[in-house]
């Protein structure tokens, strides 16, 4: 893709990023942050690619380090977010409780 194309994608992504989280409730600030954190763990894809194309040892080992770190970020991130969200799991069906 050409640079302007990437720029276009970048700009549109900014809007999407802003819009989708704009109504978040305060209580979800931390899980949302954690989930977003896990998402940027896809740098793993980049790490894999550069490692896979590594020509020197330095590149290889650095790349592998990046793979390890990115994996920690991604995998750990999703797991910890899931744990944070446990409180939103099982909520009994709302029953009409109060009669005025």
């Amino acid at each position: 893709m050409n640079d302007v194309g990437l720029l276009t994608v970048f700009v549109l992504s900014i809007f999407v990023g802003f819009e989708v989280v704009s109504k978040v409730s305060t209580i979800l600030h931390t899980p949302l942050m954690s989930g977003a954190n896990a998402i940027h763990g896809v740098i793993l894809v980049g790490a894999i690619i550069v490692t896979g194309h590594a020509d020197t040892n330095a590149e290889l080992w650095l790349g592998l380090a990046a793979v390890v770190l990115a994996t920690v970020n991604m995998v750990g991130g999703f797991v910890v977010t899931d744990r944070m969200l446990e409180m939103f799991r099982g909520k009994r069906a709302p029953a009409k409780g109060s009669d005025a």
Partner: protein
Amino acid sequence: MNQTWVQIAYLVAAVCFILALKGLSSPKYARRGNLIGAFGAVLAVVVTLVAEPLDHMVLILVAIVIGSAFGVPAARSVAMTAMPQLVALFNGVGGAAAAIVAIVEFLSSGQNESTGTLAASVFTVLVGSVSFSGSVVTFLKLQGLITSRPVVFPGMQVLLPLTAVAALVLGVLVLTTTSTAIVFALAAVSLLLGVLFVLPVGGADVPIVISLLNAFTGLTVAASGFVLDNVLLLVAGTLVGASGTLLTRLMAQAMGRPLLGTLFGAFSGESTLGGGQASERPVKSLGPADVAVMLAYAERVVIVPGYGLAVAQAQGALKELVDLLGERGVEVSYGIHPVAGRMPGHMNVLLAEASVPYEQLKEMDEINPDLPSTDVALVVGANDVVNPAARNPGTPISGMPIINVDQAQAVVFLKRSMRPGFAGIDNELLYDAKTQLLFGDAKDSLTKTVTALKSL
């Protein structure tokens, strides 16, 4: 460079990430959102492994296993309270990974890149390193390994900008010289910059900084996408960068902190919430939306009204809140202390005016046994009648029986300030670990909570 189907798979992964963020911003779909995000991530990785022509496949797989072996148990076993620092750490390693990827890319083809791509690499190294070292410092702060108070030493005011300028200069040098050594120097200076950046931030502001560093890391990933001509990284990174920036602002707002004050408050002498509120001792304050979620997801709630309810004339708003909770299946009752208010039966007069059914009103002796099994005790403009000081001798209220809200799982106070009640004595419970405060006029706070509850 790739086949079309890989690109499309990447696009699907990107869509997953969008849906993940969307889901994560509503309590109802948050969990599902996270799972969709995880699915997208796995898809992306698998597609990369399968479709890219890669060497060192085994090593890469081993590295992934090692990474998982670190990440999963850590995330699984962490205590609820330690989660923020773990997130900080994860964010930091993500930033480091991005920086390393940029360095490797530079090593392998730095000489041949366009200036634009080079600039993106420099950005990634700089910001990724800052994010890494900054995150590590926040981790140490939150973990209590270093003090959570703002750390400012003499000369810092000079050192920080100096380091920043140095990093910028090194960045420009990389662009002009494409020297490997300078890249490493840039990384080193950036690491220092990250430390200097976070040290002066005080304890309560740390979560805001984590969020900011998280957005930073997102941007580095986006830049990596630019460098690698990878749309997925570009989209995912930008999403995180944009949503993270907005989130940082929202968090700062929710805590009533100006964003810049948070970051540089320690320099300008502004207090950054290192230790305390207006008063000396720290209390936890929260927003109406948090109260709404706490109540909505509780099984049993006890409301303890007091004189403040009458002053605010908030009985109508309170009834509305309770009705809404009832509709959601939360079990709510009012715990009425015999001397709440300023007149015998004051609460009855108020609540009858709002047509609260008599059956919802429980006497102190009737409600007290329920409190240990109560998820949230909501204290609306009451103080003395829930003050545990009454149990100790020597205070003006000693010997007065109280409603034992301190036995509930969580306590939320609605009051305007830290001022005491009728008896004029401080309330220990306000500083308790399980207590949170929503400051403001009770009517106002309740109305806002009702609005937040409706949007859940």
